[in-house]
């Protein structure tokens, strides 16, 4: 019903919605009358008559009307809660809803008058009182403790439990030496896996359940703060464990509240800044590498890092030197410190300095993490990352200093084995930091045994070791361990508070051999070892479509320089040198000519089970076929920029020359046909279709350069 009402405000003409709400109220009235709840019935009746008038087209949908109806809903809700608590309708004899009923009647009659006399104005005394903050946050407690499960799922679970009991009986009768024992063990393994799977599935709830509370909250908040806000959702079907869903409810509410109160500017300011008066808050949920990411993105004013720095120094959280040394990313994360608020004034909704730190504490309690990204003038994104389920995670068990530790697979990037003969040369030093040359980059190394103060098992440089390349919370480093055990699915058990306080263990688990292993918190371990955060390469801000002027910003980005099939007038026999943004190029492939096939006169290429068209400007293929000896063509596999879904196209080029940083030149009115870029002090033409790829992602590009 709540959803319907907020929907109704957006689409006032929708009679379907009105009827739906009407039916809901009517049902409440009917059943309560039947059950003898008179108070509820009276209120529902008042609401029904108002809705009836609305349905018959006697009333127009206005803000005030919707507010009234929402108040009616609150009234019904509170009575229902009272019934739940006490079994009777009212706690005191004085409790009644006359005021509310009168209001509803007035709304009905008043609107009648208004419609006849001044169709556009509301009668005096009908000013909507913004719903108070407390009302919005009341959450019924009993709702959270029950869970609806499909009977089908429950039956399946029962079957599996039956199977489990049978298998147990057989195992009890059997002996480890018996011929059928391996078979039984395997069956037990199967049944356990199946049972786990169904229990997990039963616990999964779509994010939409959580999101459904927000339209109403956003509406009320927007009215209170005097903002115009639209809320949008993405990924409502993303499943998340029930208990986790409850755990992120408060942090999410907080983040949305912050976005509206601090993020979105008042309409006048937005218009001045060249944005539409209505701000957008986007709630997005999706799965990513074993965790669920929930983002709250607004297109508001953003957070100024210099402001954060000054505030932090003012509050004595940092010295000014420390503040100057911080990277943009680090400065932004200051928001999460206790007692920090950049709000210029404390409001009713948020900004008391208890805010983001609570969000972080809540999310971290369930093993998640929170990040913040922001660009001044463009908006802010709060990204919460929570594990799919609390209970079971895939992990790699490593040995170091004679003890076992579990690394969550979600933060594991790759494993490197350093054999004994290379051990000495592999580790290089820069000051006190030890580094490993991994392909082209330098990877800071962290010795797990030394960090934890364990007895080193052997002198480094004398024995072989493994490097687990891990990444979490923007920190990427190599964790040096003595040995690797098999990957295992581990059952996470919480540690007691005193051990949690050490900070680098997120839990413990019982391994297959019965011993305990501590689970390492990769981000915290890196932080303790002094590994710095590297700003993430991909900005989120571009996810919110902003109409801000972007063309004026001079941007730099990596470009692939290639020789195209077209012959330039000055280059003699060679093709013209052109540039293509690196972000658009997925792969550079060398394709044998024999693999290029023709369909309907057009060249196509089979690439990873996908048929992609070949673009051949200047007929390079034809030329190559004519020439003996050149059996392979160089092809750039590009993502087509404008298409909604990722479609690929292969571009035939003579050869790839270089990859280097280039600056996109400001679009010249005269030469608007061509986008030019300055790469290594030479002008190159940017492939026309892909020029927009650069222009549309300014935040990303700027950050990469910074």
């Amino acid at each position: 019903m709540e959803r319907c009402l907020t929907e109704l405000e957006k689409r006032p003409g929708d009679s379907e919605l009105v009827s739906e709400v009407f039916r809901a109220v009517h049902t409440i009235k009917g059943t309560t009358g039947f059950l003898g709840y008179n108070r509820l019935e009276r209120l529902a009746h008042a609401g029904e008559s108002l809705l009836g008038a609305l349905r018959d087209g006697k009333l127009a949908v206005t803000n005030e009307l919707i507010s009234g109806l929402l108040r009616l809903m609150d009234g019904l809700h509170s009575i229902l809660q009272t019934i739940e608590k006490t079994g009777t309708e009212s706690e005191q004899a004085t409790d009644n809803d006359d005021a509310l009923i009168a209001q509803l009647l007035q709304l009905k009659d008043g609107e009648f008058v208004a419609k006849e006399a001044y169709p556009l104005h509301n009668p005096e005394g009908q000013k909507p009182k913004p719903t108070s903050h407390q009302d919005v946050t009341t959450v019924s407690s009993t709702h959270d403790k029950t869970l609806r499960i499909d009977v089908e799922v429950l039956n399946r679970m029962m079957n599996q439990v039956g199977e489990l009991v049978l298998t147990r009986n057989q195992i009890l009768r059997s002996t480890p030496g018996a011929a059928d024992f391996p078979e039984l063990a395997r069956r037990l393994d199967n049944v356990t896996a199946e049972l786990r799977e169904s229990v997990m599935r039963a616990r999964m709830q779509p994010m939409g359940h959580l999101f459904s509370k927000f339209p109403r909250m956003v509406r009320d908040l927007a009215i209170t703060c005097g903002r115009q806000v639209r809320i949008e959702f993405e990924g409502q079907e993303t499943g998340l464990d029930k208990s986790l869903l409850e755990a992120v409810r408060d942090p999410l509410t907080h983040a949305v509240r912050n976005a509206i109160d601090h993020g979105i500017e008042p309409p006048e300011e937005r218009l001045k800044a060249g944005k539409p008066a209505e701000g957008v808050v986007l709630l997005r949920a999706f799965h990513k590498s074993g965790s669920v990411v929930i983002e709250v993105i607004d297109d508001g004013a953003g957070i100024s890092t210099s402001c954060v720095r000054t505030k932090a120094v003012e509050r004595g959280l940092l010295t000014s030197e420390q503040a100057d040394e911080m990277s943009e990313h680090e400065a932004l994360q200051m928001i999460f410190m206790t007692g920090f608020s950049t709000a210029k004034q404390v409001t009713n909704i948020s900004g008391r300095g208890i805010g983001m730190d609570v969000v972080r504490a809540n999310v971290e309690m369930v093993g998640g993490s929170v990040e913040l990204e922001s660009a001044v003038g463009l908006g802010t994104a709060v990204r919460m990352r929570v594990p799919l389920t609390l209970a079971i995670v895939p992990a790699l068990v490593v040995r170091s200093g004679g003890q076992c530790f579990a690394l969550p697979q979600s933060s594991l990037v790759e494993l490197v084995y350093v054999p004994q003969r290379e051990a000495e040369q592999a580790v290089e030093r820069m000051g006190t930091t030890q580094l490993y040359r991994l392909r082209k980059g330098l990877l800071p190394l962290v010795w797990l045994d030394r960090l934890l103060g364990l007895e080193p098992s052997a002198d480094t440089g004398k024995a072989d070791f493994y490097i687990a390349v891990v990444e979490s919370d923007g920190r990427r480093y190599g964790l040096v361990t003595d040995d690797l055990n098999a990957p295992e699915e581990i059952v996470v058990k919480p540690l007691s508070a005193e051990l949690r306080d050490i900070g680098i263990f997120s839990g413990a688990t019982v391994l297959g051999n019965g011993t305990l292993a501590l689970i390492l918190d990769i981000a915290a371990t890196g932080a303790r070892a002094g590994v710095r955060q590297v700003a993430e390469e991909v900005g989120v801000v571009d996810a919110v479509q902003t109409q801000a002027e972007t063309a004026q910003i001079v941007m730099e980005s990596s470009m692939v320089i290639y020789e195209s099939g077209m012959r330039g007038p000055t280059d003699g026999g060679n093709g013209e040198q052109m540039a293509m943004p690196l972000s658009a190029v997925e792969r550079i492939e060398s394709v044998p000519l024999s693999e290029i096939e023709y369909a309907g006169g057009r060249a196509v290429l089979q690439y990873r089970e996908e048929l992609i068209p070949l673009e051949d400007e200047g007929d390079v293929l034809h030329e190559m076929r004519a020439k003996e000896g050149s059996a392979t063509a160089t092809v750039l596999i590009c993502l087509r920029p404008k298409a909604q879904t990722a479609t690929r196209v292969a571009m035939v080029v003579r050869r790839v020359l270089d990859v280097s940083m280039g600056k996109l030149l400001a679009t010249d009115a005269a030469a608007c046909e061509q986008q030019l870029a300055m790469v290594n002090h030479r002008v190159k033409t940017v492939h026309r279709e892909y020029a927009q790829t650069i222009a549309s992602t300014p935040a990303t590009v700027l950050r990469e350069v910074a």
Partner: protein
Amino acid sequence: MNTVSICSLRVGDGLFGIDTRQIREVLGTIRPQRVPLAPEYIAGVMPYRGEVLTTVCFRALLGLKSRIGSNCILVFDGEQNEERFGLIVDGVSGVIALQRDSLEANPSGLDARSMELFDGAYKLLSGLMVRLDPSRLRPSRLAESRLFGRSMQEKQGEQR
């Protein structure tokens, strides 16, 4: 009822007693998994009925060196919001019934650490049996009092 049943324990040369009603279970020799960087009095963690049990080493609390050999783990239930925890002692001798009035409160001359750990003593014919109160030995309480063993991380900080 004027008697209490007390479980008597040996740690080092000392004799200690805990009210049997407060003990949930006594386990035989188990070596808990050490937790790096944890305070010295935390002996480690061990699996216990599907949970991870934090254990406190009583020898470390008394300032004795840890020893290799058999030991006993007493498991105490959590009160209200507190978690379960285990206490490692050298051995359990048995259960004896003692007169309530043989309990003497902590003498005033006791040092701060002992004052924190002990809860009076029973006067036995053979000597004194120090009474222990499990709620005083709770890891969270020990961490608050800050009287016992600095954690490894503080030590590391000093070295730097």
